[in-house]
């Protein structure tokens, strides 16, 4: 049930925002920044001297909704979904968007983003005997926005995403404890839209 509620909440955030912005008074300017992309990384596993390195790519989707505090700075809340290979996590948290370039009427601007929160495992379904618990999430980045300041724009961004998770694993013969601590360190490349 929680999952359904969250999905509905996500839909509301995605679809309901633009019309809301138009009906609100001028002083409060709402911001939406919705992005889709990949989380790129790799992992080295095995014992020393016999390591295997594999590349990893995960799909990521997130939407940031907030208010414009000044011409450069917006703050808000974010929610998303990250499809890691063995964990489907839903990061929720707070974020900022800061325009680095001078606020003017140009078509191109550069922004910094900073998101932090917690990756929830509610949407995840594990194999029998496994259980994923979420963990802290940190996601700083930099990007380019193409489009006029007061209109819809297109964004490309690059960032670093750090996501922690704990995993319970089924015990095998002769084992008393078997747990895994995961730190996903990924390069986040995203495209998106912002209003």
């Amino acid at each position, binding site marked *: 049930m929680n999952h359904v509620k969250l999905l509905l909440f996500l839909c509301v955030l995605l679809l309901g925002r633009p019309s809301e912005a138009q009906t609100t008074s001028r002083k409060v300017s709402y911001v939406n920044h919705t992005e889709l992309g990949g989380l790129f990384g790799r992992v080295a596993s095995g014992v020393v001297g016999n390591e295997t390195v594999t590349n990893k790519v995960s799909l990521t989707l997130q939407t940031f909704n907030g208010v414009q505090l000044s011409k450069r700075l917006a703050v808000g809340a974010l929610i998303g979904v990250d499809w890691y290979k063995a964990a489907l996590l839903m990061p929720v948290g707070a974020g900022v968007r800061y325009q680095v370039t001078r606020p003017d009427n140009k078509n191109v601007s550069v922004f910094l983003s900073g998101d932090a929160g917690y990756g929830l495992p509610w949407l995840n379904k594990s*194999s029998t005997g496994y259980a994923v618990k979420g963990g802290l999430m940190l996601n700083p980045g930099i990007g380019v926005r193409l489009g006029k300041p007061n209109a819809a724009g297109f964004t490309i961004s690059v960032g670093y995403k750090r996501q922690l998770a704990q995993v319970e694993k089924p015990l095998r013969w002769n084992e008393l404890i078997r747990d895994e601590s995961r*730190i996903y360190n990924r390069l986040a490349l995203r495209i998106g839209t912002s209003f």
Partner: protein
Amino acid sequence: MKHIVYLLTVLALALTQSACTDQCTETRVFRRFTPITFTQAQIRQGVGTEASRTLQDPGKIYTKDGFLFINEIKQGIHIIDNRNPELPRMVSFIRIPGNGDIAVRNNILYADSYMDLVAFDISDVTNVRALKRVNNVFPSGQFNGGNWWYNPNTGDVSDQRVEYVKEEVKTNCEEDVSPTWWGGMFLAADNRSFSSAQSAAPSTGGQTANGTAGSMARFALYDNYLYTVTSQEMQLFDIQNPADPKLGNKITLGWGIETIFPYGDKLFIGSQSGMHIYDNKNPQKPERLSVFQHARVCDPVVVHGDKAYVTLRSGNTCAGFTNQLDVVDISNLLSPKLIKSYPMRNPHGLGVDFPNLFICEGAYGLKSFNAKDAQNVELQEHIEKLDAYDVIPLGKSLLLIGKDGFYQYDYSNPRKLRLMSKIPVERPNAIS
């Protein structure tokens, strides 16, 4: 614009090179075995009473008349004066090589010593005396996951010393992890046909002359008999004269037998393949009524009224990947039926003081449940920072034994157990 794109590209490359590597570490604790051999003389001459000593590798627990008996695996039995549960006092230690199980009737304590059964007079707990030894009745057994067996030709016992090893392995952040060489060896060893016998403690049918055992017991007292289970058989001992146990009937049970729990005039036997129910109206010769089958895992069982509570556990010597609590309707003993299963982490012993149900989760602590509604067994509290192997609920206080020590909880409020006392394990390589 070109500069910005260039900057982003360089940044991306830099991040990929340096920081974008997942760090996934699996922490495992496992057993490592070393073969060891004892002669018959070493075992039989090694019995005696000593001054009390600290807990080092505790096994099963047993209680009678305010006294606790804690098995020190393969070493003997700690006797503890627990008449004041807030302040238990170590009294003495009975040295019994190869001991795992205990049962007490009146002032006679029965203990296994590898292949033998020994009866002790415990009327003076500071000077326990061996009264009688029944020789060569248990052919094989298991302690801490390591098998032992007795060779009647040489008189030697081949055993395995167990050490706990902690290991950290870098994984690929996915679910399947290839075991290391020793893990592979143990997995292969799991397929061997031999699955042990013996371990530890007793259980009773509630007679005042008997003590109370935990759910992991392999010894049980009823009427004039002591029932002991090995991996395949139930061996009865006639204890009409408690000081003089005599070999009784032997009943073949099947394979993978692990625990015995007497309830009323029935015996509930936990095995790796299911729960066996025996009618004990003729205590000399119990007869099988039915078997409740389940996946191949370990399963101690406790009973209250017309419900049996069975925990299934994988890992250890138990195959399978099932970890759960099964609540079974035994109103018709000829046809037990599963009411509902509840997922667990790594359940070991359990105890029921209806409606309270306590389940040991091994290294993952103790859980307190309300089992009033079998369709909705409700978790009331989970104490995580301890190792729990077996429990005995005594109406108000809960006796709990684990690898890190012996605990006593007051469960007047089953949603918030109160620790009354603890006797810690004191050894350098204890698992914490």
